[in-house]
């Protein structure tokens, strides 16, 4: 309380400390925070154009909180995304009903929503590199049946059938670790598809 009336005095060292700290923190964050291989996949109700979605979403986090499968996360700029790492989307649309701002809109045919496209990295996939793993195939058979395997048990994604639910990412046994070039160790990732509307 003794410095209650002291005028503000900033030395050059103070200034450098704050802005140097901010800059160093930003650089460290951009290196250390794992970046996805593809643009972030938005929640199932994000059928508005990307600009309208960004204008309407204030990052309140309700969609993340209500998701019964923990499929949604918020990125650094508060936008919700789906990457399949923590859970996968079964298009229950609970997040859409929870959204208070109109950023998420109920699609006309909710169960036919295409969220994204699963892309298999053949350099990471156990079935492609070695052999024997059928986790994603056996999961997808029960859902969209979009993953087929050839005679060598190597998986392929049918781009027409895949709705990008993220179950294959979720069950992929490769560890979800951060590597220098790939940023995620999973052999399959979700790739956002541009919406026409």
């Amino acid at each position: 309380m003794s410095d209650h009336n002291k005028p503000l005095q900033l030395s050059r060292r103070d200034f450098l400390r704050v802005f140097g700290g901010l800059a160093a923190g930003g650089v460290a964050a951009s290196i250390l925070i794992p970046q996805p291989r593809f643009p972030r996949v938005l929640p199932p109700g994000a059928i508005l154009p990307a600009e309208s979605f960004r204008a309407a979403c204030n990052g309140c986090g309700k969609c993340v909180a209500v998701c019964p499968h923990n499929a949604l996360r918020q990125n650094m700029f508060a936008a919700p995304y789906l990457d399949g790492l923590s859970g996968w989307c079964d298009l229950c649309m609970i997040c859409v009903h929870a959204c208070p701002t109109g950023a998420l809109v109920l699609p006309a045919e909710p169960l036919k929503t295409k969220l994204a496209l699963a892309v298999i990295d053949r350099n990471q996939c156990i079935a492609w590199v070695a052999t024997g793993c059928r986790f994603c195939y056996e999961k997808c058979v029960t859902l969209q049946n979009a993953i087929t395997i050839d005679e060598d048990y190597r998986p392929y994604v049918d781009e027409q059938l895949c709705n990008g639910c993220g179950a294959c990412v979720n069950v992929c046994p490769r560890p979800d670790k951060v590597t220098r070039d790939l940023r995620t160790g999973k052999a399959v990732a979700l790739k956002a598809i541009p919406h026409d509307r």
Partner: protein
Amino acid sequence: MTVDPPTQSVARPAVRKRAQFNTWARVRFAATLGAMLLIALSALLDINVGTFSSFSLGPVTVACPLGVAQILLASQTFVPTLALAGLLGLGLTIFFGRAFCGWLCPGRWIFNHAPRTAATPFKARVWVQGGIIAGVLGAAVAFHNPLFCIVCPVGAICRGAVAAGAGGSIVPSIGWLGALLSLEWLSGRSWCRDLCPVGATLSRISALNPFVKPQANPEKCRPCLACMKKCPEGVNLSQTNELSTCTKCFACQGACPRDAVEIKLVAKRER
């Protein structure tokens, strides 16, 4: 204990008053902590309670007025439910004043620790805060994006609580808080008093609020400025009745050495 002059030996309840201040602070901290735990628990149990950006109790949703204004300006579309939620937030602010800042906002316990400048005069602060609000709304219009909501410490902490409940990462929240703390430290201002756009918005709205206001009893009050020094908003009760910035934290009541601060349940409008 020192021997007092006989004129001042009547009332010296300093120890008791300090205890009372700490009691209010403890209650307010418990309220804030409880709200954060509620948010995290709702995320854990997948219940639609929401955060302070937009809070739901059953079918009723209350939203942050500044956030609603930003979204309506940024998206240029009118969403009736969202506007209604914003109006409810406005109504709650008229009813409770800035009690949100004192009782529920977690930023109160993170910022505001070492303001290095004295409180700016009220009129100057009104202009500065008006400029901050206009800048936030103008940025929303210009960039078609509610930009302040990304940075907002209340939103960031609530996102951290949701992430803690749902299993996400709280690192982004800590990063934004660190950036804002260094901004506060660099500017030498108190965040809650001078810089926070949400607090500024609530201050302007709660000019209409007539309930639960501290007033100095002129018979007991000597202008010792003890209330002003304890008040996080720098309100001098011995001089002013302008209490639109009051956060109902009751620190002034505990600080007053003469028991002169009375909490009026319904205050008469001045001017």
